[in-house]
């Protein structure tokens, strides 16, 4: 199952821009790590999976509004903000 992977495609999916050196390094390291994962392919495994919880005492909270940080606190930590809102690069072109 450790067939090759396309590092350019992976980087695009992960929204990462990699240099040529990074691509070579990560390709080599990921191949090695995926080779170690071969044990999973060969193992006799159960058909079922379960969730992470070991104590069945957790409960969903009521679906009711709770306290929120508020616009001032949120925009204070944003990289760019204007008029109480977070600024981002233009998403829609003028002509569209």
């Amino acid at each position, binding site marked *: 199952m450790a067939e090759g992977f396309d590092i350019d495609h992976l980087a695009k999916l992960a*929204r990462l821009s990699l240099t040529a050196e990074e691509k070579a390094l990560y390709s080599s390291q990921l191949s090695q790590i995926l080779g170690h994962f071969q044990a999973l392919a060969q193992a006799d495994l159960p*058909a079922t*999976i379960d969730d992470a919880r070991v104590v069945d005492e957790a409960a969903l909270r009521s679906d009711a509004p709770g306290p929120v940080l508020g616009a001032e606190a949120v925009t204070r930590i944003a990289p760019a903000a204007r008029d109480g809102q977070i600024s981002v690069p233009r998403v829609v072109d003028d002509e569209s």
Partner: protein
Amino acid sequence: MADALHTLSAAELGRRLAAGTLTSRALCEAFIARYRTVNDKVGAFTHLDEADVLAQADASDARRQAGQGRGPLEGIPVAIKDNIAVKGQPLTCSSKMLAPLVSPYDSHVAERLRAAGAILYGRLNMDEFAMGSSTENSALRKTFNPWDLARIPGGSSGGSAAALAAGLVPLSLGSDTGGSIRQPASHCGVVGLKPTYGLISRFGLVAFASSLDQIGPMARSVEDCALLLDALASADARDMTCFGPSDRALTPAGDAKQLRIGIPKGFLGKGVAPEVAAAVNAAVEFYRAQGCAISEVELPSADLAVPTYYVVATAEASSNLGRYDGVRYGHRSSVAGTPVEMMTASRSEGFGPEVKRRILLGTFVLSAGYADAYYVRALRARAKIRAEYLAALAGVDVLLTPTVPTPAFKVGEKASDPLQLYLEDIFTIPANLAGLPAISVPCGKSGHLPVGFHLVGAPLSEAKLLAAGRLFEAAHGFAHQQAAL
């Protein structure tokens, strides 16, 4: 007297504060003085707001004077790993991605510590986004093992362990996704406990791998570790996995001499350094001499734990770290362009090499055509490992192994070989995969380097782990040990 305060346990400091022979201000001033002389050698802290610490200490002293003390942690400093939110303090995860961020809110554990009267004392270095086993992946600074400054302190909670071993603070918080509390505790000669999955709320813990992450206490003795655990466990609707305090987990267990201890077959063999095996075997013989029943147990799928973990953890990390897009908080690239170009540039500039490696790996194991072969098979392997651990723990109270196969290695020694670093966690990972509580307790030295043993118990068996640890530390000289600096 002030010079010796850093050598005392939290329990003893609490007694002196309660008796009125010590004030929180005097205590915090002593720790700040030590921070100024020692932290640059060790690099445990990335931030300490001295004025804020002293203001908290004065408020604590005022409460106590007014007869409104809040319990055994009143006035005692607790240092916090830099992935746990404390309002008004930096929250960087030791990453350039978040380096300018100041948290606008308190994590649940920070709320609990404030409610207990503790002093929220500084930010501790870590591997970036808790990804690593040596703290070498911090983008902020290097942290060194106080027992040998040429060596790593372990990770990812390396700052939390090193601060304790250096006498920079009596208590600290770490987080543990695959061993990140227990492995550095072992390397630094301190106690670290990963609680049962769900015992402590993760609200305000920056997510790495949500089905594995837990916050836990670290200290220089089992007694202090228990003190901190008691303050942290509490129901919290903001973490849907959190079931809150459990009498079963926290009520002192019966006679530890009655414990049945299982030794997993083969765990002390291949890959374990002789000095580590000797120290752990000596601990086994100690328990046998105390009257504990020792037996060998089978964990046939143990070899699957590391690959299973690195598939599950990286898959979840690649999803969790998708939120760092340069829009709402954290680093935003100055590269102009479309929103996608801005996000890509921000992530590429903000994340360090190990984080990128894990995001790429997690993206691959979840990608179309590969998810069934990797991610789904890893979930099935996880179910098998958990079933085997629970079956083994039906016949014994705790499982005893080394915490780490070898003592702390030299800085840089494994930096170019991620797979070798991943194998550091071979004994600690299964407890995360199975959601079980586990503790590392100092049990000896390999030369001058600390060695710890590792106990894993059934869900909510924290009290048994702590009782077993107390029995050992009461008969040995490893509690409260500190490196000479």
